[in-house]
């Protein structure tokens, strides 16, 4: 049985704002009967202020789909359309005290219905670019279509890389075989495509050089530190979304020491988070650096001295 929070159950058993809304002037239909989830969101928008006066829903779907729809209508009531467009699926999930990873798509559907309804009100076309595959990584709720997309776009070849890019496989590791299968399928696709002759004829000895990162102009110490800071700053919002954070403590040649904060602290995924950040730093700097928890700082530096 799914591990539904009290709040999910409560919203499922007593859905708020269910049923058609008379004189709705914004309607968003998303989902499909094939997937087993579909939602019609109906809004009554004040034309003067663009404020949502009332919101109703009709949902075909499981317990969490109905609860997410109910939560969505409660969240958006009273917001202006622009404010409502800022509502993220995470907010819907948070409102319900979280959803099981396999059910996060229910909150995504809520956000999409909102976008569709606003587009409908404004007379715009709304196209969904959302695809969904089978859940591969249950720890981080990553599905096969996201993994495929990232693997194709970045030419990834190893499970470790997939973990760095998507977090998939960074938790209990039980999906590694599934990720390998996806990698194998995509690599098979690549091989069936005609290979450029130059690549096919490249002697093996030079192969490692081809794989090395393209040399970048050497950075000054100051530029290098700035680059590290910028990279980490760009990552922080993602961690903050999961109620975590990271802070740079010291940069000592190849070693970058950081403190993981908030939810990241003591999280069983700590190592995966660190290696993910490290991969991005390596990419940004064009040189190898090692990301270490600040707790190792004195030990390492002491040892080196």
């Amino acid at each position, binding site marked *: 049985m799914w591990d539904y929070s009290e709040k999910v159950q409560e919203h499922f058993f007593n859905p708020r704002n*269910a049923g058609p809304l008379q004189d709705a002037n914004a309607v968003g239909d998303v989902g499909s009967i094939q*997937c087993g989830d579909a939602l019609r969101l109906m809004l009554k928008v004040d034309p003067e202020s663009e404020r949502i006066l009332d919101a109703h829903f009709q949902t*075909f779907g*499981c317990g969490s789909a109905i609860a997410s729809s109910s939560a969505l209508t409660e969240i958006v009531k009273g917001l202006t359309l622009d404010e409502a467009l800022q509502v993220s699926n995470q907010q819907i999930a948070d409102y319900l005290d979280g959803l099981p990873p396999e059910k996060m798509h229910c909150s995504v559907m809520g956000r999409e219905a909102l976008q569709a309804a606003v587009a409908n009100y404004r007379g715009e076309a709304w196209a969904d670019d959302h695809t969904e*595959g089978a859940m591969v990584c249950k720890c981080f709720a990553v599905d096969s279509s996201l993994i495929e997309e990232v693997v194709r776009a970045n030419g990834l070849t190893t499970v470790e890389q997939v973990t760095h890019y998507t977090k998939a496989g960074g938790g209990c590791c039980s999906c590694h075989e599934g990720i390998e299968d996806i990698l194998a399928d995509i690599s098979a696709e690549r091989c069936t495509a005609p290979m450029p002759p130059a690549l096919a004829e490249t002697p093996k000895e030079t192969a490692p050089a081809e794989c090395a990162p393209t040399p970048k102009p050497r950075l000054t110490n100051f530029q290098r530190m700035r680059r590290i800071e910028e990279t980490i700053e760009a990552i922080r919002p993602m961690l903050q979304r999961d109620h975590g954070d990271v802070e740079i403590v010291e940069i000592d040649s190849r070693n970058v020491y950081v403190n993981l904060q908030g939810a990241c602290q003591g999280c069983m995924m700590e190592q995966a988070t660190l290696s993910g950040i490290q991969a991005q730093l390596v990419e940004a700097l064009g040189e190898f650096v090692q990301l270490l928890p600040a707790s190792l700082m004195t030990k390492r530096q002491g040892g080196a001295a």
Partner: protein
Amino acid sequence: MNPIYLDNNATTACDPAVVEAMLPFFTEQFGNASSMHSFGNKVAQAIKDARAGVCELLGAEYESEIVFTSCGTESDSTAILSALKAQPERNQVITTAVEHPAVLALCEYLEKEGVVVHRLGVDRKGRLDLDEYRALLSPRTAIVSAMWANNETGTIFPIEEMAEMAHDVGAMFHTDAVQAVGKVDIDVRRTCIDMLSLSGHKLHAPKGIGVLYLRRNTRFRPLLRGGHQERGRRAGTENAASIVGLGVAARLALEHMAYENGEVKRLRDRLESGILAQVPCAFATGDTTNRLPNTSNIAFEFVEGEAILLLLNKQGIAASSGSACTSGSLEPSHVMRAMGIPYTAAHGTIRFSLSRYTTEAEVDRVIEAVPPIIAALRDLSPYWADQAAERTAEKRASTAGPSTAAFKPSFA
């Protein structure tokens, strides 16, 4: 309000007599059946007796044909892998599209290893096409594996006939009879089935015990090696307590066979007709004229199964669903898809599976509980509103255009 358990195809309650028989084997009868002392000897005797019980239930000729395993899944894996290993000149497997994942997932894996797998399709009622089957059989067929009865719909396959057809081309025949044993009259002696899987917890024995029936003279390669237990065909110290429990459960199942096909069947029919009489746009799936006596699988259109289960559960009623959401997958049950049940209905399939413990009062309570639940969910469903609008429009046969915009969401 007592809970009502109508999910007996998932698992069953242990019969109290089974539990009672098992208990001494956790305490004073703790010996290892292989040991050369009185502790072991008594356990070995009890296992022998249990084996005889299973033999009676299946109609097996020799006790040595009964191999105790840990579960139905192990029996299925053992059977199929053994057939391929033991006949290296044959590399094809024939199975059906509606098998349990224990067989389907293994076949998928074997395909990657180079084994050729044929999956027989089914018609709208879940029945096989025996001509298609005959055409697939060849001297390259190592084994045919087909379930005796389907776990979701209860539909029964013509196993005895299929086994004979397999033998005609020299292929082995295995059947996953996990759902059928105890409900269908099985007498392996009368058939030419080579291997059969049975699971204890589907017939009021505990979880963690299964049987592979292995006809004498069937070429065999064990899955587990490392001991002489089960005549070297399944190494590992015997799960004595569970084996004893299964022995008792097997004898009880034989005693209750007539009850299952009489009273349990009557209650199932009462439940099904009671629900269908009250709920529009609902139908029973599978071959309703040839199925297990305890199973009813009803598709409720335009509602989603998990939501139904949650509302049933709130009233203390336990059933199961073939919807995508209950399994965490994106597709509804492979059995419903194989039968070509449309998506509008496949997501809303609910399986009620009864047992000899089910009472008429319970069935009546479920008949009363289901219609309001479906009605409430349909009120919530955007598809139902459109459906209702269409129906009124049809009734009126009016010339007016569609009254509401049809629900056509923007992604598939």
